[in-house]
């Protein structure tokens, strides 16, 4: 908090030097500078939030329906909808099944490529590049990769004697296939944060552990991982938020099927708005999803705050 205090002191002295005597106009300046950002923030974050809350409590389902207060009717319909139950449950599985493997892999890549050599920097790029391409482009490629029999995955698995698998057509496997795509796409992004975090791990602590006779595994478990805890906490939040906000691959590859096996919350919202035209259910689902996101952010806020102190 030191820097913040000196910052505001400095600002006072600046007011005295530069803006003295301009009174009203100078006092108005900060608000004028914030106004453009604030207008867009209100129009596209707070206004829609209010709108979603209001229309989730209204009986209006389509644009020209009567607008009457309906209480929690929409929420009752939403939570009673088996499609929504599926989407919520799938999203929970999807969140865990993408967050955990991608973080484990990201940490593994970061540890393996920790030293900055020429080869390592090329390998880092190999893992990072999927982050840069559009999720829909990755989905287009995976449409072929996951084709039964002739696809890239089956073609090579069959060389090892595996049987053909209907990766996105089988309800028991489809969600796992999408998780595989997500892990492939995001692990390299999370690796960057671990690489940055590893730079902050003090050499002294590691050398002390070596002198104490700790082997690689012990050093990882007792020295490196505890020091990386803030980074890990941060990456977990990003990964969880991504698991709720990115559904492009569902739209391209499975449309939520087969048998609703890959329906996720945001895809459900999109479906209600675009296919079923049920504004009440769509907005109730929006509010419910936002509540989940808020819960993720707020529970993590404390860990994050602790993390920031750790880094300093």
């Amino acid at each position, binding site marked *: 908090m030191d820097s913040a205090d000196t910052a505001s002191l400095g600002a006072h002295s600046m007011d005295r030097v530069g803006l003295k005597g301009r009174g009203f106009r100078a006092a108005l300046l900060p608000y004028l500078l914030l106004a453009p950002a604030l207008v867009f923030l209100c129009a596209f974050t707070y206004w829609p939030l209010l709108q979603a809350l209001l229309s989730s409590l209204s009986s209006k389902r389509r644009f020209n329906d009567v607008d009457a207060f309906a209480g929690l009717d929409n929420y009752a319909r939403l939570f009673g909808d088996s499609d929504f139950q599926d989407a919520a449950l799938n999203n929970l599985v999807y969140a865990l099944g993408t967050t955990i493997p991608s973080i484990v892999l990201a940490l593994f890549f970061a540890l393996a490529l920790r030293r900055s050599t020429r080869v390592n920097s090329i390998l880092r790029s190999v893992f990072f590049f999927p982050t840069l391409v559009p999720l829909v482009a990755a989905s287009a*490629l995976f449409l072929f990769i996951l084709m039964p029999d002739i696809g890239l995955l089956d073609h090579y698995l069959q060389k090892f004697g595996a049987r053909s698998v209907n990766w996105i057509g089988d309800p028991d496997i489809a969600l796992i296939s999408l998780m595989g795509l997500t892990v492939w796409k995001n692990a390299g992004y999370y690796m960057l944060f671990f690489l940055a975090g590893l730079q902050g791990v003090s050499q002294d602590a590691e050398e002390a552990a070596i002198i104490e006779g700790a082997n690689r595994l012990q050093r990882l478990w007792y020295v490196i991982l505890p020091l990386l805890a803030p980074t890990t906490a941060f990456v977990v939040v990003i990964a969880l938020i991504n698991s709720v906000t990115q*559904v492009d691959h569902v739209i391209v590859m499975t449309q939520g099927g087969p048998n609703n096996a890959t329906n996720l919350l945001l895809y459900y919202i999109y479906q209600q708005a675009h296919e079923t035209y049920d504004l009440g259910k769509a907005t109730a689902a929006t509010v419910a999803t936002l509540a989940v996101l808020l819960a993720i952010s707020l529970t993590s806020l404390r860990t994050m705050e602790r993390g920031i102190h750790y880094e300093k």
Partner: protein
Amino acid sequence: MRSDPLGRHMRHALYCVAVGLFCGIVLVWSSPFLWMLVASFRPDSFGAAGMASLWPDFTPTLEHFGYALEDGDFPLWYLNTLILVSGTLVVQLITVTMAGYTFARLTFRGKDLLFAIFLFQLMLAPPVLIVPNLTTLVKLGLYDSLIGVMAPYWGSAFGIFLMRQVFRTIPRDFEEAAIIDGCAWWQVLIHVLIPLAKPGLLAFSVVSVVFHWNEFLWPLMVINDPSKQVLTVGLVSFALGAEGASDWGLIAAGTLLVTAPLFIAFVLFQRQFVNSFMFSGVK
């Protein structure tokens, strides 16, 4: 653990196995792009059975690219995506610089509250608000326009935080000297602070361009008119058509057309990309 339970040779062998395994992982990780590259140049005569081979055992052909450019409106989609990302970025740069400067350097009543109002947006991911935002666009008459796709991102809380951090790391000595010389606040901002904040602005720009270049769901919902279609939405309609025809070479070529510019930019400015994305974690 001080004694070495494994012999030197054993250790060496284990190290080789580990390196071999890691090479395998690298190969698997890059295989989707390797396949895209190989399949987009593979002549059709090989049939579906050989489509999956990663081995380029053929004379390359450009015919898939020819069909892709015939089937898809790639130049138009490129143009629209370019308009979309630059229009988003230009306004963002103005709003986040002004707001970032205000939060970093000025004191005023309600500063903490206003800051918290911005902070809160980071927790509400914009993609979730698609339904009410679409209603707003319809009311504003911005439905089916690229401006409508851009507008929700013009008040980027992430950018404001980033620029606030960047401005705060700049020592005050420079600007106080300029103020004593009689410069107004905006002269200080333009001639002193913005040049010093360039790395931050660049990092924000890279993240913003990549994000909006890749975005799909929001433009899919806002844009109806085919002449305003962006690259991602175009690619999907194109790829689903080609999938129906089982024309995998065509999908590979179309996807290559979409990812190639990103790949070239990444190879040229690798360090900048990596640093920018690390910067994006500062929020």
